[in-house]
């Protein structure tokens, strides 16, 4: 898995490519913990190049989402490929996350 982070406007963006699973979670978890601990943080996880997400990765995303929301921030997802989206649908996490088709739509939603 490859992980690229950047800041676009006020939004912390991370792009994850390849498999996002138990083996690749630690650096993503550390980054999410850091950026979501700031009150009002806006975080976008771009999964456009992510091929697979396992339960550990889902747990990390949920923890980050809840931590963000507790501090009046928000965490969005974008660009989910069909196999990854199915995992969110199966576990109904599509109801918990705001999921956008691409980064542009997600960033626009943050600015609204």
């Amino acid at each position: 898995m490859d992980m690229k982070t950047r800041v676009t406007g006020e939004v912390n963006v991370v792009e994850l490519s390849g498999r996002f699973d138990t083996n690749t979670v630690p650096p993503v978890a550390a980054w999410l913990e850091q950026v979501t601990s700031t009150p009002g943080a806006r975080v976008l996880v771009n999964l456009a190049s992510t091929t697979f997400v396992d339960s550990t990765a889902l747990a990390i995303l949920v923890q980050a989402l809840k931590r963000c929301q507790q501090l009046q921030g928000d965490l969005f997802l974008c660009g989910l490929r069909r196999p990854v989206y199915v995992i969110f649908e199966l576990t109904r996490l599509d109801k918990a996350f705001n999921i956008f088709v691409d980064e542009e739509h997600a960033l626009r939603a943050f600015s609204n």
Partner: protein
Amino acid sequence: MLVALLSSQYPRFAALAESWLALGATAFGIWQEGRPLVYWPAGHRLVKPALVAPIARGDQELGDLRVAGLSGIAYERRLRADAQLISYLLQLENELQLMTADLVTSQDQQLALYRLTHAMRDHVTVDETLEAIVAEAVRMVKAESGYAMFVPGADQEPLLVQQPAGTLHDEQAWRLYWQGQARERELQLPETAGDLKDQGVFNLLHVPIRVRGAVMAGLGLLNRPGGFDAPAIKLTRAIADQASAQIERMLLYQERFHQAKLRTEMELARRVQLELLPRSLPRVPGLDIYANSRPAYQVGGDFFDFICAEGRPFVFSIGDVTGKGLSAALLMTMTRTAIHSKAQFMPCPTPEAVMRQSNEDLYNDFTRVGVFATAFVGQYAPGNQKLTYANAGHSPVIYRPRDGEPMLLRADSTAIGILPVSHCRNQMLRMAPGDLLIVATDGFSEARAPDEELFGVERLLELVEQLHTGDARQIAASLFDATDSFCQGQEQDDDQTLVVIKGAAS
């Protein structure tokens, strides 16, 4: 020293005197610092001798030999030769004394080092060990004060102990540590260390300590009367070597202790998990039921449960709490208990109601500790061949109607603890003879082969299609066997739990 030699060798000096007297001398004596020490014959003090020869050690004059009544170059040479012989004897005597003193010091130091090793055996923390090293080093090297420090791995705080506390500012001690680390050998009071001198440090010795091949610790001693001479440096190095061995021993002990603690925690978690699982399978008319759970080495938070109460519908649950170890086992207990008590005591315990109420009870606690739990609750009332269920984020759930293909059932709500309000709804499944429901945990779908490939839901669906004719126990056993053979002996990453329910003739 001359007096000591005279005392120990008096008969030989007396014989020397007799030989001079026999040669014709009227008197023979030995003087020191202008006073007679001994003389023959008694009463002749040799105040005005005819011959005098100095007894010396190096440039230092220790005394002289005196003869009266004889003169001439030959006697003078002989007396000088006697004096030189005595000087040589004195020199040997002196060297012998120094060697004896060295031997005694060396024995003392060996004994002290032995005591140091012995004294440090009881210490199990780095702090205690450093305190003991500094105390013993100060005592043995006779310094006024000392310090020791240890820089462990990146995730631990560096340690510094000083005796007495506050002798140096912490940054001064750490500066010496880094200088010692850079040089990898001992250093004495740096000439540029004006601030140390201002603090009353008139001499100092810092010895770097190697731990596991790298400089990770240091020992410093301050203000030794007479300075740090070669024996003091040698002794401090020996103490530093002992400290190195002790720190390595203690690190090994701590690692073993940590591993043992982890093993105990895992064992406890495994026992909590297994003890809480139902000990027998329920007998429900119209259903063939089998369930099993196999904890991983790093126990996860899987559970399954049956609630069979007189006059109430049969309820079963299966779930998976995020995380591993004892914390996951404890949170699993909370989840299982919340679902169990609601299913047992609520007036109308439909799966939807049980799930909604459980989410309400657990949401705040789960949010605080940052976890969530997927859960599946099913309910079956004999007679109507229908199973009602609610699924909070749980996967994989596979249903194979007797006359159709296996299908994955989607959850109807997010897992417990994610949203404050559960959106669970009662769902219905036909459970007539031959219909099959398999609720497993992700330990199956995410089982790994040695090449990291996952077992995946597709393989599960194919297997269910192959196995659907067997009874519940056979299907479960084949699923466990299939994942085992897929993993090829690879250690199980996560718990594997499943409930297999098959419609049967009542």
